[in-house]
């Protein structure tokens, strides 16, 4: 047995052994077998979602509709589940058949690790036309060419403005460019005798309410990641435009003045929300704010519009994100799971019903045009933002929100004046982001 192996061969054998060993260590991808077209689906399917109370009840109604038309499938619903619970359950080998998450942050990890299965074979088999889905929602439900999730309703972000305050300041229309926004913000701002702020036109701090960098990025069309998944914040000049504009406005108010003013404002999701109380005249927020205003500040006279932009040609969009749904790799009944997902994310009537109940933006072209969809004028603005090609989302990454939060730290240092040289700071932020991103998956 102990044959002499020539040196050249030796390294080859070593390489082969190493390869075999590594292959043995990483589990071979389980071949995904799906049923033939037309096979009848039956059995029990378990769905985990994050909704509670009123919203959970809305889900239950839709599930009831589903079981009425699919009598062979029984659905068990577990409400109020979060992403970390789902991750642990899938890791431990008993994930739910279907997971419904509020955060696109998990798409990168769930697709790349295979925690959620590739839906492509099902989509191909059932001839589901993905072009019926809004393009942005398509982009945040796949990662690395793998479609492991489907969009389940969406959120669109735009600008809310207080019509009474606009009228009092003599401003006729909402700002469309960043320069107009800064100008209007200054006109709308009221100071106390001692120089402190009484009312703020637009509060430009990045850690205020929904002002996260991701939500303002569509104003300048800034990109987060390069094609190979590296940080693009240093290379994309759009970020510099946004940050310079923002810092100028911050300095006009005075950073300390803003800090002090902000510290006295109510919580974003309470009735004391600063926009609802007229303390802030212009605010970035999503379509779900409409329901809050209706409930908490019914007398507020306000309007909504797309995000102002640096370049007028890019006007019309905003930030888009949404809920996502997928099938666990250890689902007991993936066929029934797909059947339910298909029903929830591609059936126009179902989506219209969900959108009406949850007051979120529907994701298919059919549902958007459906006459059954309740569309108040304000909601229509958000649907337009959602459909606008200038709208942007935050791309999925294997390390989840790491790149956004690392950049978030940088921009809070920037607005407080700790960063002196923006170019050097952005280059450094690039390095930090790339480093943090290699930590995970």
């Amino acid at each position: 047995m102990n044959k002499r192996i020539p040196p050249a061969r030796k390294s080859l054998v070593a390489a082969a052994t190493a390869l075999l060993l590594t292959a043995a260590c990483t589990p071979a991808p389980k071949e995904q077998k799906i049923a033939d077209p037309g096979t009848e689906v039956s059995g029990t399917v378990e769905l985990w979602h994050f909704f509670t109370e009123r919203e959970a009840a809305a889900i239950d109604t839709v599930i009831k509709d589903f079981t009425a038309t699919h009598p062979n499938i029984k659905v068990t619903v577990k409400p109020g589940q979060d992403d970390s619970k789902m991750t642990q359950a899938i890791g431990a080998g008993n994930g739910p058949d279907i997971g419904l998450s509020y955060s696109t942050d998990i798409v990168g990890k769930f697709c790349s690790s295979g925690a959620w299965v590739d839906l492509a074979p099902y989509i191909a088999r059932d001839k589901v036309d993905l072009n019926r889905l809004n393009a942005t929602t398509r982009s945040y439900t796949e990662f690395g060419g793998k479609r492991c999730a489907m969009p389940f309703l969406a959120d669109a972000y735009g600008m809310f403005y207080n019509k009474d305050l606009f009228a009092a300041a003599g401003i006729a229309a909402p700002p469309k460019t960043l320069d107009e926004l800064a100008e209007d913000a200054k006109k709308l701002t009221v100071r106390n005798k001692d120089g402190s702020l009484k009312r703020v036109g637009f509060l430009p701090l990045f850690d205020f309410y929904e002002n996260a960098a991701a939500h303002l990025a569509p104003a300048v069309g800034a990109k987060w990641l390069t094609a190979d998944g590296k940080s693009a914040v240093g290379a994309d000049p759009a970020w510099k435009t946004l940050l310079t504009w923002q810092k100028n406005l911050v300095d006009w108010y005075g950073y300390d003045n803003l800090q002090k003013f902000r510290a006295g404002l109510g919580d974003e999701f309470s009735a004391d929300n600063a926009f609802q109380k007229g303390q802030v005249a212009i605010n970035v927020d999503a379509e779900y704010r409409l329901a809050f205003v209706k409930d908490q500040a019914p007398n507020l006279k306000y309007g909504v519009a797309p995000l102002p932009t640096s370049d007028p040609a890019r006007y019309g969009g905003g930030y888009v994100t949404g809920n996502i749904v997928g099938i666990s790799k250890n689902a007991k009944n993936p066929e029934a799971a797909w059947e339910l997902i298909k029903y929830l994310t591609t059936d126009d009537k179902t989506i219209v019903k969900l959108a009406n109940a949850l007051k979120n933006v529907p994701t298919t072209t059919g549902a958007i045009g459906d006459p059954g969809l309740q569309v108040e004028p304000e909601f229509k603005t958000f649907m337009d933002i959602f459909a606008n090609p200038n709208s942007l989302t935050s791309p999925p990454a294997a390390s989840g929100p790491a790149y956004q939060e690392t950049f978030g730290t940088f921009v809070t240092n920037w607005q407080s004046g700790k960063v002196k040289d923006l170019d050097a700071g952005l280059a450094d932020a690039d390095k930090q982001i790339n480093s943090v991103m290699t930590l995970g998956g």
Partner: protein
Amino acid sequence: MRLRRLTPWTFLAPALIGIVVFFGYPLLSAVYFSFTKFDLLTVPEWVGLANYRRMGEDPYLLQSIRNTLWMVAVLVPLRIVGAIGLSLLLTQLRRGAGFFRTIFYLPALAPPVAATIAFVYLLKPGTGPVNAFLARLGIEGPLWFNSPDWSKPSLVLLGLWGIGDLMIIFLAAVLGVPASLYEAAALDGANAWHRFRYVTLPTIQPVILFATVTGVIYTLQYFDQAAVAGSIASGQAVTGGGISSSFGFPEGSTFTYPLWLYTVGFRYNALGYANAMAVALFVVALAVTVILLRRAKAFSGEEQ
């Protein structure tokens, strides 16, 4: 005969099983995972010392260490001094000691999260009653949890408010000092300070040691209050993106070591690195404990 030898083990079994299953096994697996790249979902990949090497060049880690050390250096001694002071005061009371003991102890019963939320709202500039009261006295209150300079001192205030747990322990220790020692000292002409310095303090020294060790370990793991205070003060108590986006608010001043550990582990899916951080924290806590115990022995001159 053999049965008899087994008897003590059977009695010890529940405790031993507990230690092995809930301490030994997790500790060993944490050490193992700290040498891997691991995301809960795929098979861990061995990376050797890479995670530990990274810790040296991680700016967020350094920031979190600075914040945590600040808390240890300020919160632990203040809590001990405060608890000793309160317990001494209580022993001096002729009347109503029971009443005040209860009052001082009560805050310790409040769940940390609820207590933190209440504190942030009480201290909230603009709407909170504390600054409104200070304004009446003509003092302009600070921004408390909203100021990077005041956020950590505010957390210390919160820690001092909930001092009751420690106070009760010191009260028992102070009451346990034999009265005869005080009498003897008084006969020798010792004044109040002397009696405290040469009678009370040496007698309660083991309790101080206990309070220091547990206090340091507790503060190294400081998480809930920092997380909640940052989130509430930022005004974004419920965000779709999850709580970690407001960790450390304002300007990273409340960003403690365990917050970073949680973020990299459960938000960025870098559980290998998070495990390396956990192991490092364990080693530091163990080292601090050993050093404190050694020094305490040297001071008291005991050699058991």
